[in-house]
């Protein structure tokens, strides 16, 4: 799991001002699932992403609260309105205190 927390973001190659741009992001994460013993869930500190925050030029535009029903190495898709050039930041927070961040430069063509 050396790669845990690796974030990849894919944005379209050309972006015009005012576009609603679709973004796909991937994070490498185990998203550990609940283990059971004799049909009962085991209490342990499960390791999964519980929050995703997307910010565009520092302004938060999307927040997701996620659970273990999200797959391993999950994808997240969303859109944002490209009003000015800048940076898109996606932050993933997990239950073990991990914080993984990915950024993409937004430039107009």
């Amino acid at each position, binding site marked *: 799991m050396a790669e845990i927390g690796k974030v990849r973001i894919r944005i379209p190659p050309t972006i015009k001002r005012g*576009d*609603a*741009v*679709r973004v*796909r992001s991937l994070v490498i994460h185990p*998203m550990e*699932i*609940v*283990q*059971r013993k004799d049909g009962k*869930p*085991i*209490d*342990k*500190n*499960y390791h999964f992403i*519980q*929050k995703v925050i997307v910010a*565009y030029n520092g*302004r*938060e*535009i*999307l*927040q*997701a*609260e*996620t*659970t*273990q*029903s*999200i*797959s*391993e190495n*999950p*994808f*997240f*898709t*969303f*859109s*944002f*309105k490209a*009003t000015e050039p800048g940076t898109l930041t996606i932050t993933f927070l997990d*239950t073990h*205190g991990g914080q993984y961040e990915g950024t993409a430069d937004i430039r107009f063509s």
Partner: protein
Amino acid sequence: MVERVRKGQVVSRRVVLRALGVFGVSAVFVPFVLGTPGPALGQGNLGALQPEEKVDATLTRLFGNRSIKDGSNVMKLDIPLIAENGALVPITVEVQAPMTPSIFVNHIYIVSDKNRRPMNARFSLTPEMGVAVIGTTLRLGGTTDVRAIAEMSDGTLLIAKREVKVTIGGCGG
């Protein structure tokens, strides 16, 4: 407590979260705070997970008895009809609704009926997104209805659902 805060770097995230958890439990009037930790059980965070329940209970817990309108004409639920592997089922939800500061899609919930913990994800959207579209990859325990529920900023609830046939479950145990 103040001293703890000052130490800042030393206090582990877990300690902070647990402290928040104590507060969260007392905040009974918050209708739904996903991830609000329950009472700490042992060492783990099992109590903080979404509860295992039937989907009806989930909907009641999230929305009380507010009426949920059929939104299938404005909501596009993009999810495979047949998923060979339940461990990775892509889903995209698009709500064809205006995203202006006066009215926009505030939240999108994803609920899968047959998962042990039906509440899967909650997205909080803003008008800055331009289009109300979100997507993720789900884990489904078996063949199930998947529901997407959109909450508009004026409180209107819209629902769309689709059955997904799952050949191999993805939730294990």
